[in-house]
């Protein structure tokens, strides 16, 4: 082959591109571009299918959802945000604490711990639709196994999905059942990394279990704790399928979370308003980033 030296040099310089470009192109088209396009949409009275009717309206969509108490979107936004927040506040503590406790139990490697690990992790692989079908049946008011069992001990049928506060309880319960397996595995892996001699030293000083957890375990797994708390919080902010399918947003829109409003406003029946929905999505996104940053700060300070 007669490749000239300068030619070979140029090929060499361009070669990395051959490896990363397929990804970068797709990333650019389906991630970077939509990100900026979404910002643009939020400043428009947007029509998905009729480009001629699109109209630039500045901050109107934001004003509408944030301040205009006359607007229906104002009510949707704040009610959705309140409900999403409620779910985050109710779900994140059990979603972090339950797997931590399970990981502590698992860490002494009792008989069959691998089987337990598999059992707790398995539901994680189910889709949201499978999850909700299982739990709607378990929580069925008249013939669900939970109410049937409770009635054996004299408790009257509880409307788990159609009355508050049971509806929130049920949504959190099924989410715990569904997702804690992953957090548990991360905790288990990180507990293994804590040096044994730290515990031995604290035994000599007569520390009790709680003190050991507070002063040895938690500081040692700080990074994983931050990771888990943030990922869990973000996942909870994104909640959509559980209330959409299990409670259908009820009772009385008390579990209609912001993602449900965003979807309905952007893609639902009637006159969709993607501009307003985009503004809502951007506010939700910014809020999620803000809260992640605050969480890192708080957890770092607490465990130092």
């Amino acid at each position, binding site marked *: 082959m007669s490749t000239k030296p300068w030619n070979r040099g140029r090929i060499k310089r361009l070669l990395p591109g051959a490896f990363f470009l397929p*990804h970068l192109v797709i990333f650019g088209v389906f991630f970077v571009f939509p990100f900026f396009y*979404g910002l643009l949409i939020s400043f428009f009275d947007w029509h998905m299918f009729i480009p001629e009717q699109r109209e630039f309206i500045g901050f109107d969509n934001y004003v509408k959802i944030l301040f205009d108490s006359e607007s229906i979107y104002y009510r949707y936004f704040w009610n959705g945000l309140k409900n999403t927040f409620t779910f985050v506040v109710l779900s994140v503590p059990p979603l972090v604490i339950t797997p931590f406790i399970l990981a502590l139990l698992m860490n002494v490697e009792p008989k069959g711990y691998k089987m337990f690990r598999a059992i707790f992790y398995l539901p994680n692989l189910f889709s949201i639709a*499978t999850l909700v*079908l299982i739990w709607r049946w378990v929580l069925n008011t008249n013939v669900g196994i939970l109410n049937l069992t409770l009635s054996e001990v004299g408790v009257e049928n509880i409307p788990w999905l159609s009355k508050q506060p049971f509806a929130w309880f049920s949504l959190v319960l099924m989410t715990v059942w569904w997702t804690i397996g992953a957090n548990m*595995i991360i905790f288990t892996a990180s507990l293994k990394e804590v040096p044994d001699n730290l515990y031995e030293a604290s035994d000599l000083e007569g520390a009790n279990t709680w003190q050991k957890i507070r002063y040895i375990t938690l500081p040692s797994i700080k990074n994983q704790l931050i990771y888990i708390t943030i990922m869990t919080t973000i996942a909870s902010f994104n909640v959509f399928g559980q209330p959409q399918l299990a409670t259908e947003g009820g009772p009385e829109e008390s579990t209609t979370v912001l993602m449900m409003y965003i979807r309905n406003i952007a893609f639902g029946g009637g006159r969709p308003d993607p501009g307003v929905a985009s503004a809502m*999505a951007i506010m939700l996104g910014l809020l*999620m980033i803000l809260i992640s940053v605050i969480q890192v700060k708080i957890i770092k300070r607490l465990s130092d």
Partner: protein
Amino acid sequence: MGIKAIEDKKKRRSFIALTIVSFFWVLPIIWVVSTSFKTEAEAVSGSLNFIPEIFSLQSYRYIFTDDQHNIMHYVWNSFRAAGLHTVLYLVIVSLAAYAYGIMRWKGRDKMFWLLVSTMMIPVVMNLIPLYSLMIAFDWLNSLEALVIPSLGGVFGIFLLRQFNLGIPGEVLESARVDGANHFQIYFRIVLPLTKPALVVVGLFAFMTNWNEYLWPLIVLNDDTYRTLPVGLALIQGNYNIYYSRLMAATVISMIPVLALFMSAQRFFIKGISMTGVKQ
């Protein structure tokens, strides 16, 4: 008490606690399976029997022959979309991970960390513009919409690059001395050496795509490409109070995932541990 005795006591106590808690994880599933083999009448009779009085396959027969919303059609659709997505994703991210982990070029690490930092941006911000893009591409109600946009995911590159960085420099150097070019090194050395990581990335890509709910709900509007989670949600409305049928459909939806989990459990566990520990 000696240390051994204390250890044993700890193990016993933890075993008992885990047994009790795991009941709450297993019972709902057993109850669902049990209901699926009951007659509709027995399913709503309010009895706490785990073993059906009349063992019936009626519900399964019904859902398999349902020609309005057939569950096997949804299973196949999900399998096709997730399978296609996984294969393409593995090719694309393993190539990219080679560029970011093995090759040396100016600005490599800067660009990589820029990519990784975009993982902070919440998905919800992209939903509506991405839909608009699907309209522009004429991809509504298509297989492309299910398979392609998510190929831009960065997580797989992140994981594979970690593995690539762990390949000893001498191995790569000696291949280079032997006259291998980058494509040969990628195929003959890097891919075989990172096989476990590829399996992990593939499994997670498959599961994520398989379980996706919101996106297919938005971009599909008939049964042609409709995937299992969305189809199952439709079935929920369609079968209404036929609980035995509903539970039969639920069982069917669990089986593929269960099979995958049984055959690749250690990869799942490994993958999850890695996401949390290596950062």
